[in-house]
C-alpha cells in the first residue's frame, strides 16, 4: 500500500485529494501546515508528499528542506501543489529538489495519474 502525505491549509482542497487517493488505495496522511507535516514525518515514511507552499508557520519550502536532509526520507518523493504559477516559482521549487511541480487549480484525475506515474 502506497503512502501519501497531503500538506495543505485549505480543508476543502485536502478533502478532495484525500477522497481521490483513498480511492486509489493510498494510505493518506494529512497535515494542515508544515509543522504538522514535520510531526507526521518523524514517525512515518510516505512514498510521496504532496506539498502546498504558502502555509502558516512552516511553509512548503522549509518542509521540503527537512525531507531532503532526512536520511530516513531519502526515497520519499516530493510534489509541490501550489497556486504559485510563475516560471520563477516553478524553477525555484524544482531547484530545491521537488520531483514534480503541479499547479492549482488542478484536475484531480491528472494529479492522481502524475503521482501514480511518479511512483512507477
Amino acid at each position: 500500500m502506497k503512502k501519501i502525505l497531503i500538506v495543505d491549509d485549505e480543508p476543502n482542497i485536502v478533502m478532495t485529494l484525500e477522497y481521490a487517493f483513498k480511492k486509489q488505495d493510498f494510505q493518506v496522511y494529512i497535515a494542515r501546515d508544515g509543522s504538522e507535516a514535520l510531526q507526521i514525518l518523524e514517525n512515518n515514511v510516505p512514498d510521496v508528499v504532496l506539498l502546498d507552499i504558502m502555509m502558516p508557520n512552516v511553509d512548503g519550502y522549509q518542509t521540503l528542506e527537512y525531507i531532503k536532509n532526512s536520511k530516513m526520507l531519502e526515497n520519499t518523493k516530493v510534489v509541490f501543489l501550489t497556486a504559485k504559477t510563475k516560471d520563477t516559482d516553478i524553477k525555484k521549487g524544482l531547484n530545491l529538489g521537488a520531483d514534480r511541480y503541479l499547479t492549482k487549480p488542478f484536475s484531480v484525475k491528472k494529479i492522481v495519474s502524475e503521482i501514480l506515474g511518479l511512483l512507477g
Partner: protein
Amino acid sequence: MSNYGLITIILVYLAILFYIAFIAEKNSKSKWVNNPYVYTLSLAVYCSAWTYYGSVGMAANSGVGFLPIYLGPAIAIPLWIVLLRKIIRISRQHKISSIADFISLRYGNSRFLGALITLLCFTAMVPYISLQLKAVAETFGIMANEPYKFGISIFEDSTFYIALILAIFATFFGTQATDASEKHKGIVTTVAFESILKLTFFLIIGVYVTYYLFNGTEDIYEQISITANFENLSKLPDLESGFNWFFIMMLSFTAIFLLPRQFQVAVIENSREKHLKTAIWLFPLYLFLFNIFVIFIAWAGKLTFGETANAEYYTLLLPLNSDNTFLALLVFLGGFSAVISMVVVSTLALSKMISNNLIIPYGFLDKFVKAKPEQNASYIKNIRRISIFTIIILAYIFYINFSIELSLYSIGLISFVIIAQLAPSFFIGLFWNRGSSLASITGIIVGLIISTYTLILPFTMEAFTGSSDFTDFGLFGITALKPYGLFGISFLTPPAHAFFWSILVNTFCYVVISLAFKSHYRERNYAEMFVDSKNFSSLQDSALVWKGEAYVADIKNILIKLLGEARSQRALNLFFKKYEIPSDTQMADARLINFSEKLLTGSIGSASAKILIAGVVKEQEISLPEVLKILEESKDTISSNKVLREKSAELTDLTSQLKYANEELITKDKQKDEFLDTIAHELKTPITGIRAASELLMEEDGDMPTDMRQTFLENIVSDSDRLSRLINDILDFEKLSIGRQQLNLKKRNIQKTLIKAIGNIQQIAANKEIKIVNKNSFSFELPYDEDRILQVLTNLISNSIKFCEPKKGVITLDYKLGNNFVEIYVKDNGKGIPEEDINYIFDKFYQSRNQNTLKSEGSGLGLAISKQIIEKHHGKIWVEKTTGVGATFGFRLPTN
C-alpha cells in the same frame, strides 16, 4: 591772545587728531569707523577754509552769489547714486587709487594722459592748498593780534611750521601701505570728526552773531536794508547773473566729482555702496546747515565794521570785537579743522597721483626691476612721502608769493575751473565708448590753455607788468580776444566766463576727435569695460583681450619685485584656484596678465603696471574689430553659459524628480505585481476547491457516499461565497486606494452604529459562544459614512472572533471622548498579536499566525480596507502593543 598760547592750543588740537587717527587705524573694522555717517561727514571735506571764511566774504561783497557753490553739489547729489555707484564699482574692480588712474585707465591705460591729469591737478591744487595756508596764517594773525609781517624768514613764520605738521600727519597716516587703493581709515575718521567740529563752531558763531550781537534775523535785515547799496546785495539774479549762477553751479557740480580730495573720500575710501544712501540726504543737509547763517554774519559784519575790515574774517572779528576771545578761538579751530582736512586729503590724493602716474611710470620702472622687493616697497612709500612734503612746501611758497594778495574766493574758483577740464573726459567717457585718449588729451590741453588765457593770465600779467591793458583791450588789442569777454561775451564773471569757454571748446574737441579718428584696440577694450561695467564685471579677468606669448615665471618675477614673495605667491595661488588652472602652468594667458596688472596697479599705478608687464611678455597686435568681436563673444558666452547653467540645473532637478518618480513607479509596480500575485493566489484557492470538488462529483460513478457528496456540494457553495467576498473586498480596496470611493458623510449617532455592527456579527459570535460587550452608553453624533464604519467595526469584531477561543472569548467595545475626536476600541481576550506582526497587520493580505481558524474566512484585506476607510475620515487606526492576553484595536474619528 598770546602767540605761544595759540600755538599750544594748536599743538594740543593736532595731538588729539593724531590720537583719533591712530585709534581709528587700529580699529579699522569697527562700526564706529565704518558707517554711513563717517562716510558722509568725510565728504564734507568739500567745505574747506574757503567755505568757512570765503563764503561770508563773498556774501558781504556780492550778496547771495556764494550760494551756487553749494547748490551745485546739492543738485548733484541725487545723481550720485547713479554715477558714483558705477565709478566706485569700476574703481574697486581695477584697484584704482586716484582720479588720474581712473581717467587714464578708461582711455586705454594711457601713461601720458595719467601724467597730464596729475600735472593738471597739481597745478589746480597747489594754489588751493596755499589758500588754506593763507587762511591759517591770517586767522592766526588776527587771533594773536599781530598783522602779517612781510619779509620775515620762513623759520620765524608759524604758518610754515603748521604746514610742516600737516605734511607729517598726511605722511604718517597716508603712506602706511604701498597699495594706494587701500583705505585710510585714520584720515577719514579725523576728517569726519573735523567736519562735525567746523559745522558746530560755525553754527555757534552764527547763532551768537544773529541772536546775541543782534536781535535775530529780522533785526539784521531791517538794519542792513536801510544801508546805501543794499539793493546790490540782496537782489535775486537777473538773466545775466542767472547765467553766472548756472555756470558756477555747473562748475561746483563737476568739482564735487573731480576734485582729487573728493574722489579720494567719495570713491577710494568708500567701503560700502549702501553708504551712498545716507550721503544722498545727509550731505545736502550738511551743506544747508553750513550756509544758513552766512548771509546774516556777512550783514552783521558789514553793519559792525563797514568797509574797514576784511569781510572774509567777520566770523573771527565779530566775537573779538565784543571781547569774546573764547568764541573766536572756537571759530579759529573750526577753520583750522577745515584747513587740516582739506590739506591732508588733497596732498594724500595728489601724492598718490604724482608717484603712480608721474614719477614711477616716467623714471622708476627700471629701478624697480633691478631692486629687491623690500627696497621697492620703501621706494614707493618714499616717493609718496617726498611728494606730500613737496606739495605742501610748494603751496607755502605759492602762498608767500601770490596768495597773500588774492582773495580766498578767487583762488578757489581758479582751481575749480582748472579741475573742471577733466569733466568731458570723465563724464562722457563713462557712458560713451567711442571717446578716445587722443580726444581726451586734446580736450584737456585746449581747455587748460583757454582757462589760463581767460583766468590766470590776466591777473598774473597785471601782477608782473602792473598794467591792465591785456585785460581791458585783449591780446594785441583785439577786442574779440579780451580775456574776460571772449567774442563779446562780457556779462559773465571771470570764473563763469572761463568755465563756459574752456568747457565748450574742450567738449567740442573731445567729441569731434573721438568721432574723427579710430582709437587703438586697447583703448576700446578699456572703454568697453568702463562704459559697460555691469556686463564686464562678470567677465572679470577675461574682460581684457590680449594675445601673445608670456611666461608665468616672468610675470611672477615682476610681482615678487613689487609685492614680495609671500604676497605674490598668495595672489597667484588664488588666481590659479579661481580659474581652476594647474599651478604648474607655464604659459600665461590674458586673464593672468590682466590679473597681474591689477595687482600692481594699487602699488605703482595702472600705467606703470602695464609697462612692467608689457616688458616681460610678447604681445601680438590685434585689430579693433577683432577685439570687439572677442568681447562680444565672451559676453555672449557668459550669458549663454548662464542660460546653460540654469538649464542644466533645471535638468538635474528634473532628472532627480524623474528618478524619484521612476523609483516610486518601480516600487508601485512591484507592489502591484505582488498584489496581483497575491490576489491570483487568493482567488485560485477557492476556485481550486470548487474545481476539484465538482470534478469528483462529475466523475463519480455511484460509489461516493451521500454525506461525502453533501460535503463536497457544501464546500462548493462556501468556496463560491468566499470567492465573491474576496472579489468584493478587492474591488473595495482598489476603489478606496485609488480614491474613487466617495464617503457619504452624515451626522450620525455612533452608539446606534455600534449596536448595528454587533447585530450584524452576533450570529457568528454566538456560534462560537463568544460574548460581545458594548461598554459604550454615550450617544454622540459625529459625521461619518455609516456603511463604511460598519464595515470597519465588522472587520475588527470578526478579527477578534478569529483570535478568541470558542466559549471563553469576550470581546469588549469601549470608547473615549477627546476634545475633537471620538475613539472606539475593540478589545478581546484571545491570543493577542505577536509583536513582529504589529507593524504589518494593516498591510493587505497579511495574515497573522495566531489565528485560531486555520484559514481565515477573511480575504486578508479586512484590516487594510479598514485602515483606508478610517484614513479617509481623517482619523487613524492602530493596534495596541499588549503583553499577554488579548489584542486591542482602536480607531479615532474627528468630530468636525
